[in-house]
């Protein structure tokens, strides 16, 4: 009887099957990302997933390596905001997040509530972090992020264009600001642009004044059901919408990006724009002879700035090398680390042991920003900030076009919040 088990055909078939199986397993492993871990490789390795790009962070991280030659630093760079958030989310889910990553407005609720970051409140250096920065990334008395900078947002103006209409001092009320816009328009100068693709800094500051009047607890009270968007946002929205009702600002801003309005400003086509301190460097580079200055947003009860604490450094709760991770964060918030970072980014740093030298155009903004006297709704909202921010931006675009009213915008925000809270 023939032994089919060892026949050449049988062997070829088995060999073929094994080859195919090997190829399938290899393909599956490659596709599912199995194999080498994305985390740290050795005990002396610490991984860092950076929010800032390589050009900004290299001098800082080179100095850390110089001071800590025994630590092998592995750095990867994300693409803020959405790309960074989604990549970090995936890595946290798969247990491959870096030892040090960034906590920011868009992910702080999930990071803090999920216990994905280590509590830094007991670190000896935590007192060096500004109070507003600590408060931003604190939950139940635990500090989950070390932010070393903040940014401010207000009205950036072209001094030469404003001088043409006799401007001497920044307006102190919203009506004064509208009057200034009208004067500019009558003189044939486009008064003010603010991009429609994000939360307008002018509106954020007006709502900030409302928050200040409520003792700084406005958002917490809305979430607790003690007040509502309808009660707190309608007046600031009414003031803000006057820009469009009185035809002082073109409704075209509903379709403009921040880059587009910046470019118009650089060309001298518009006298004032609503923007943040981050934009100053690129504008000065593009228009080096332009005389610029920021002014706060004037409201009915004073002036205020928009702004927020910058993203903070967080230590992974499951860091493979927690000691080295803490050492890295300690360095990043140290005087040396912050000074090197500030040199690259011209950021308004807020750590207590270092005072940055900043552009004179920011002079009116810096004290308020370093004191944490600013407001940005999506950062202060306790939960669902990304969803509500997206909804707000779309509703404001409709308001700019005259398709809705301030009252309806505020009510729609209440409805959205109720829906997100499952009510």
């Amino acid at each position, binding site marked *: 009887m023939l032994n089919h088990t060892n026949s050449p055909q049988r062997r070829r078939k088995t060999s073929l099957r094994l080859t195919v199986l090997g190829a399938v397993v290899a393909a599956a492993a490659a596709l599912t990302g199995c194999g080498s871990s994305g985390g740290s490789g050795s005990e002396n390795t610490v991984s860092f997933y950076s929010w800032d790009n390589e050009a900004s962070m290299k001098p800082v991280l080179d100095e850390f390596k110089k001071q800590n030659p025994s630590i092998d630093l592995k750095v990867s760079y994300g693409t803020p905001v959405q790309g960074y958030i989604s990549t970090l989310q995936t890595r946290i889910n798969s247990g491959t997040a870096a030892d040090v990553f960034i906590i920011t407005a868009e992910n702080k609720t999930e990071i803090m509530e999920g216990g994905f970051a280590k509590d830094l409140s007991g670190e000896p250096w935590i007192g060096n972090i500004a109070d507003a920065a600590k408060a931003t990334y604190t939950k139940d008395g635990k500090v989950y992020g070390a932010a070393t900078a903040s940014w401010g947002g207000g009205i950036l103006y072209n001094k030469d264009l404003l001088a043409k209409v006799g401007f001497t001092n920044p307006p102190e009320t919203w009506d004064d600001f509208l009057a200034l816009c009208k004067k500019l328009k009558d003189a044939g100068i486009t008064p003010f642009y603010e991009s429609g693709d994000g939360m307008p800094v002018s509106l954020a500051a007006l709502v900030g004044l409302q928050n200040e009047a409520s003792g700084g607890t406005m958002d917490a009270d809305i979430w607790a059901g003690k007040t509502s968007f309808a009660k707190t946002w309608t007046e600031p929205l009414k003031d803000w919408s006057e820009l469009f009702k009185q035809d002082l600002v073109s409704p*075209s801003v509903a379709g403009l990006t921040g880059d587009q309005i910046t470019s118009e400003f650089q060309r001298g086509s518009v006298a004032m724009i609503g923007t943040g301190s981050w934009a100053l460097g690129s504008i000065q580079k593009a228009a080096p002879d332009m005389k610029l200055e920021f002014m706060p947003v004037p409201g009915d009860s004073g002036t205020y700035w928009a702004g927020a604490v910058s993203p903070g450094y967080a230590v992974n709760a499951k860091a493979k090398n927690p000691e080295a991770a803490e050492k890295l964060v300690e360095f990043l918030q140290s005087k040396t680390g912050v000074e090197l970072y500030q040199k690259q980014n011209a950021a308004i740093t807020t750590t207590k042991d270092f005072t940055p030298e900043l552009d004179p155009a920011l002079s009116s903004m810096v004290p308020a920003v370093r004191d944490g006297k600013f407001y940005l709704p999506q950062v202060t909202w306790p939960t669902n900030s990304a969803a509500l921010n997206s909804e707000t931006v779309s509703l404001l675009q409709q308001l700019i076009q005259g398709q809705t009213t301030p009252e309806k915008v505020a009510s729609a925000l209440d409805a959205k919040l109720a829906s997100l809270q499952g009510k």
Partner: protein
Amino acid sequence: MALSTTPDLQPLQPQTSSNRTLTRKRPHRLSVTSWVFMAPIAVVFVVLYVIPMSQSLYYSFTDFDGYVSNPAFVGFDNYAELFKDPSMLSALGYTIFYAVSTTILVTVTAIPLALTLNRKFFGRNLVRSAFFFPAVPSVAILGLVWGFILNPLGSGVLNSIIRSLTGLGPIPWLSDSTLAQLSTVAVTIWALTGWHAVLYLAYLQAIPADYYEVSKIDGASSWQSFRYITLPLLIPAMAVSQLLLMTNGLKVFDLPFTLTRGGPGFSTRTLTQSLIEDGIAQSRVGAASALAVLFLIVVGLVVLGQMALSNALQRKYS
């Protein structure tokens, strides 16, 4: 008019008889070979489609936020939520408008263009390349370039041209809801017509010249030749082209997003943008998964309907 001498027109089909012969002769070798070639694809299909789709189905019944490992079961709440969310309904409306209008308009522009490009004229290859070119660069780049052209301010390229020619003030191409919707469709037609014209051109070149010669002998006009020869023989091409247009239209994200970011308001927000923003940026994976499941069903039904229609037309003309 009856074209009595015109031969029976059969839709163009790939020749398969030799394949069938091969199958009968060497069934075993072909099945093993097929298996070898199919296995990697099957793995890709399982890993990249079946597993994620199963996960989406599971997440759609939970409150998963993208982070927690044990989400709570919420039944059909996520599905009910979809129909209450105005931004989601707006995204559904715009996506359908976009998919249907681009499918129809690209088809009615690509076929005449293909007929023109099929004729002999000086510089024909250059013209064919020029029309095909918009399909080459990344859609995101096209979106950015067209964003510059359609800038709603007076400094926008198109607005500058209009002002210099007519003296008219800036037109809010991307800042007005209706104009933004029309602009996204117009840019899509510009980007896709050339590619689909080349597809039709390939089918046109496969039509035997004898058919037209016979119809000419029978006294058929140009319109009659087109109506009774060209059009029926282009039905397979139309089925392919329209299937691609409809499926791409329903899942579109890049072009409207780079042009308008979904605005103004919710006017050019697509379902895919809702999926991405709700699922990732807003940490509402459960709600986004419910949308994905519904979307998959809707796309499946649309594609099935379209294929049934194409088959019916093919049967009618074959």
